[in-house]
């Protein structure tokens, strides 16, 4: 039996193999003690491709679009099903964020406690 913990809309962790997996397609992204991003595909975008200028960019400096010199959009896709797992807005070249760092021992302890019926009860 495998023990799966849902972590986000598109990410889950198999506590037995200690691997990140895609919720949609089951693709294994890699070691759960590292960033899930390591197993994904990344695409860098000019932010104006998504947040396009709404007032005339030829005429105006500020247009509702982000400034591409200041901000880039990084999109992370599942290599299995191409679902967009995460979007990150960063200044060009800024180190990528290790956004989710799990404590696998804590999760495993809870699984064991719940199996033994000793978990904490929710109170009103």
């Amino acid at each position, binding site marked *: 039996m495998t023990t799966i*913990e*849902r972590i*986000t*809309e*598109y990410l889950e962790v198999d506590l037995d193999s200690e691997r990140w997996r895609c919720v949609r397609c089951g693709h294994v992204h890699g070691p759960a003690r590292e960033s899930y*991003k*390591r*197993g*994904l*595909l*990344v*695409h*860098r975008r000019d*932010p104006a491709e*998504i*947040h*396009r200028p*709404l*007032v*005339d960019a030829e005429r*105006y*400096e*500020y*247009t*509702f*679009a*982000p*400034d591409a*010199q*200041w*901000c880039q959009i*990084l*999109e992370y*896709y599942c*290599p299995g*099903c*191409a*679902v*967009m*797992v*995460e*979007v990150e*807005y960063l*200044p*060009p*070249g*800024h*180190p*990528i964020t*290790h*956004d*989710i*760092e*799990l*404590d696998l021992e804590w*999760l495993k302890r*809870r699984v064991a406690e719940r199996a033994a019926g000793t978990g*904490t009860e*929710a*109170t009103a």
Partner: protein
Amino acid sequence: MATNPTTPDSTEDEAAALEAEVQEFLHKTVLYRGPDREIMRNHKPAPRTALEERAIAAGTDDLTKTIIRNRLQTSANEAKDMLMHIASAPSAKWGDLISGIFTASGDLAVASSSGVLIFSVLAGPPIKYILKHWKDEETVGVRDGDIFMHNDARFGNVHNTDQSCLMPVFHEGELIAWVGTIIHEGENGATEPGGMPSAAESPYDEGLKISPMKIGENFRLREDLVTYFQNSVRDPKLQLEDMRSRLAGTMRLRQRLLEAVEEYGRDAVIAVTRGTLEFTGAEVRRRLAAIPDGKRRVVRFCDNTLREPILLKINCTIEIKGDEMIIDLRGSGPELMNRAINTVLASLKGMIAQVFLTFVWPDLPRNQAAFEPVTVLTDEGSAFDCSAEVPNAVSMMTFFPSFSAVEHCLQKFLYNDKHTGDEAKSTEIHASWWPMINGFLFGGYTQHGYFVGNVMTDINGMGGGARSDRDGEHALAPIFCSMSDLGENEMVEDELPVLCLANRRIMRDNQGFGRFRGGHGHQQVMTFKDSPLWGWMAIAIGSKFPLALGLFGGYGSPCQPLMKVKGVNLLEAMREDRSLTVDDPVALMNERPFADAEYSTAHTGMQFEMAAPGEVYAMSQGGGGGYGDVLERDPEAVVRDLRRDLISAWTARSIYFVAVDAATGALDAAETERLRDEERRARLSRGVPFDEFEQAWTTDQPPAGLPYYGSWADRTVIHAGGPDVTMPADALQPVAML
């Protein structure tokens, strides 16, 4: 003290007496009783007092305590509702205020259930200051009937446009509690009208800076002091009315508290105020313990000082460990010597507590202890923990995005709990709320002949973030006060020489895209008439770098510019040509229907600027962030948004990959599926494996030419304007902006 063994005893006694005299002299002769570091850096409730121990030991039964707690809550709400009706400040009328009951030690135990809950952890410090510095000072003292007031954030407050009224409550000669009310007043005599001066270059440009002080005795305000405060601001009418309003609200709360004491006994009431604090802290700890341990990180960027564009980093790591939370903001940008966006640490904590009290656990009792299990780590001298010598009047520019950072990280913690039993009892998982006050401040003469300076309550219409199971709501509520209102245009136009040409209009494409989309903000197109002198101001960031974050593959929401049409009186032009209209500022800027007018856009940091009648100033509130992958959005929902003009045809096609039949406007389901499959294949072909991408992407330094403030990879090295200027994080110096 070193003693000489040969010195006779009598001399030793004399030396000790002299030492005692010197100590007494030093204690009494204080050069300046400024902001108290010990009080200001500690947000935890004080230990139980002897009075509280005795009261709790008296053993009031739980049912009685519940009745008392509900009664005190109702009383706090009553005082707040009363103030909304009688106070004059525009913000007070629409909910930007709070009232509450404090313990005798100054901890906020029961706050009005709506209102600005930022105050939950920073309304107490001024009382603690009064207790520490003025209670035993023979020229001040704390007695029944005393009235205290304060507004300076360096002593505990959001910013000095907020003014308080605080009163001790005595019972049979013993101090048993404090009661108080706080209102966002607006005008405060700063270098610009309206109370939130972005032109301030030092604390001394920020207007009234009231350290906690006694302003009345025997339940009456001292008229000489009232006159002094009126004399210090541009709107003496407002100052008088609201000093009296706050006193009335505070005295009502005092009356209700004493009625409860009369009915249930002093011990029972004190057991409830103290007990509520302790219960709340314990419940937050229980909930934190239910959330899996671990760390979450995000980096955010404030993109403006309100004077010039900069990139000021918020470096946020949140750790949950057992029943405690550590919010680590070290590595964030340094304080700016002559820009007012710095925040005092206590104000930052207040804003973060707001995440807890309204956006994650709105069921918690409204009090200070909700934040008790949290530790906040900062670099002292950063813009997020600024010194007393730098201005802080528009600290919202740094603490609002900090709110978003914490809000965002908490969602990434809470998702697992939501799916495995919901033991932490949080609200729905959601993407960022729009975290900025995109609305106008104003100053000038009204059509009634009064000089006023204040803020339009349009700032309250921030777009809601998308939820995990539905779209975000439009122009819903500000992040600092979830129950406040936008106000009524007719009332605004009745009081001010202002015309809202196209207000409360939801703007197309102004959303965070996602499987569920963020709510939109509303547009504001302002002009004025019938005034000899009128001007506008704007204090918002987010014109270059998006502010609201998406969640789990959702996009953030767009940037927001300021738009102006000057050099023409639109009202006259429209009177002459009835075909001219202004119902959409974006169309106004693109179509330029008024000949000879000057059309321009700018970032949303605008110092007070005089306008001519009929000139137009416009902006939009921002939208909330999106949730989940855009390709998973229900195509029918996209078509519905298109039909409602919430999105353009371009967005339906290029963002959501939805095909619509041009003739009928109906969904083309087969073509949509084809477009989406094609886009999925395109993602797989353009996506680069992470390691390869990271190697090509990451640089050692911020790009040259970018005005970058804060750490890059190493949180102990703080950049101060670019790649080459750095400071160690433990020895930050204020940065002077040229």
